[in-house]
């Protein structure tokens, strides 16, 4: 139970006691004490601009109270069955940075009855811009107990960080064309508006085929098989929601698990973690072919006195829901997305080819847990603070 946690430590108790006892027109009224509790897990939280709306469901009578002026509020509720909604602002600090977000509180079927009642209203973070995020990226893979290279057990976990059901249909995951460890002065430099992808995979679907409920996740495996059968260091990915089609030499198809569509050549997740990954949504009216026709472009950079031209794929930043830069501290040079999408980077391994990186992943931190148990993950568009680096993959026993 969320309410039993010590989240009440930061309880903003707004006492709305109204000293009206008489019922001059015969309608019974109740004095209400409102007890608000801040979202769990937040530090130095303070709320402001709270607006309480109560609706009597039988008469559909709505009353609104501005709780920022608590002193002047006189609140006498007619007895009845209510739906209670609260909206407001919250400030909290995380790693020394102050953030301002929206909060809400909501309860329905609240019986306001008797002379005096106390109404407890837990508040939760609310972000109408939230969408899919990378919860976890396991890009390093594993080695066998004999220390040999092992392919196919990498994975992504996508997470619905919003409070709406979202559809995974036509979501694309793209890997950067460049490396975070080699800065290129490329032309045209379109990073402010678009992400330059080297490989792209897409979740198939009709548009509403793959619902993901709030707080739920999708596991997208490289090969969706039980890798533990052949490699004791690996993971069982046979229950994954989706799988990639890898290069034919290392691909194993599980016919029970839906494949993503390869928009480009096969994606081979960089196991030293020099790349950037984005989640974006392909517009519903675009086919893979029409996307590629419109978004294949040539960029080039000088390498010494040689002009190096390449073909890449553009993904407009406006399509992108989440981005994570990955790099290695000793050789990091630059980020591969606009800073508005991700101004930091996460990692597994501290030097190039760090042998200790295998079997480790990056995972997004938990920001808060809502009263209904839904976990909200941290998404400040800064992977340095949003992610835990070098963690044990959550699917690894």
């Amino acid at each position, binding site marked *: 139970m969320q309410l039993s946690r010590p989240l009440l430590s930061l309880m903003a108790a707004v006492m709305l006691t109204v000293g009206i006892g008489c019922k001059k027109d015969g309608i019974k009224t109740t004095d209400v004490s409102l007890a608000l509790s801040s979202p769990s897990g937040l530090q130095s939280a303070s709320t402001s601009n709270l607006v309480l709306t109560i609706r009597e469901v039988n008469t559909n009578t709505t009353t609104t109270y501005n709780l920022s002026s608590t002193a002047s509020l006189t609140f006498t509720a007619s007895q009845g069955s209510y739906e209670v909604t609260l909206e407001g602002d919250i400030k909290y600090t995380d790693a020394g940075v102050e953030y301002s977000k929206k909060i809400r509180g909501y309860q329905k079927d609240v019986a306001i009855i008797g002379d005096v009642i106390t109404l407890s209203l837990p508040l939760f973070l609310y972000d109408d811009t939230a969408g899919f995020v990378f919860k976890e990226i396991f890009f390093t893979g594993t080695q066998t107990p004999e220390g040999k290279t092992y392919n196919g057990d990498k994975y992504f976990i996508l997470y619905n960080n919003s409070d709406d059901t979202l559809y995974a249909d036509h979501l694309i995951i793209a890997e950067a064309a460049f490396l975070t460890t080699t800065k290129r002065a490329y032309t045209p430099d379109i990073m402010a508006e678009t992400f330059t992808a080297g490989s792209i995979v897409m979740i*198939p679907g009709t548009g509403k085929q793959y619902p993901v409920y709030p707080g739920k996740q999708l596991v997208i495996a490289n090969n969706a098989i039980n890798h533990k059968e052949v490699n004791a260091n690996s993971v069982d990915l046979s229950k994954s929601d989706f799988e990639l*089609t890898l*290069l*034919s030499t290392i*691909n194993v*198809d599980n*016919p*029970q*698990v*839906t*494949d993503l*569509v*390869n*928009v*480009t*050549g*096969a994606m081979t997740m960089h196991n030293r973690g020099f790349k950037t990954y984005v989640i974006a949504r392909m517009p519903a009216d675009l086919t893979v*072919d029409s996307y*590629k*026709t419109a978004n*294949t472009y*040539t960029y*080039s950079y*000088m390498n*010494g*006195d*040689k*002009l190096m*031209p*390449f*073909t890449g794929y553009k993904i407009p930043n406006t399509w992108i829901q989440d981005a994570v830069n990955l790099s290695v501290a000793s050789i990091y040079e630059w980020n591969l997305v606009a800073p508005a999408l991700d101004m930091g980077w996460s990692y597994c391994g501290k030097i190039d080819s760090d042998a200790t990186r295998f079997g480790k992943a990056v995972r997004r931190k938990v920001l808060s847990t809502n009263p209904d148990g839904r976990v909200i993950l941290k998404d400040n568009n800064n992977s340095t603070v949003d992610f835990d680096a070098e963690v044990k993959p959550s699917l690894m026993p």
Partner: protein
Amino acid sequence: MIPNRSVDAANLTAPPQTSDFTYTNQRRYYSYSLPSNGSRINKKGIEYQLSTKRFKGINTRFTINGAWFSTTYVNSMTSYALLSGLQVPEEQAGQFVATYDADAASNYLREQLNTNLTIDSYLPKLGLIISTSLQNLWFTSLQVPSAESLPTSYMDINGKVFPYTKQSQLDPALKLFDRMYNYTSFRKRTVPLDLQVNLKVTKEFKKTAAISMFVNRLLTYTPDYTAYGVTFTRQAFISPYFGMELNLKF
């Protein structure tokens, strides 16, 4: 691929047979390399050597030799290319064969000019031979002659051949056959002066044994140079090489 609907995997009691699966026929091209006679190498050059007598008094002889070479490599064979699963989705790999005229980008013209000067002094009283050589590479150059980036035609999976046109360049798959040569691909690249000095001291023992100590690259001179706006530095990792030699005669 798409979830299997041919076999009820959850209730399998024995390995499924291939005949249990629904399938579609797909075809693709594969390629392999075939050695053939299509390349030509033209070499021309001048070699020279000048040796002086051993001058009395200093007991020293000077030897100068060197050469100028010019090598032209030309390949006249038609070449072909396929798209791989790294470039396009696997099901689209090997669906086309692009045909290029003689791949001029593998052609090159290489030139170099070098001069070596050897000074050897014989000190009979000490039984010592001191030999100093200066090896100087005046320049090396390499140039790829202009070549065409685009194929002339392509063949589809049914063996039908189409000319490769401007329209082809708009197709996301066919576009990848563009080898994207550019003006920097065909520039002459010249590396200037590369000088090194080697020293060898040999001590003879009654004409039956000789012991030598040598230092290669005792001195080097490889100045930084600028080509097409880029400065190249060459000497970062050059270090002298020390060695010894023992010769015995029986």
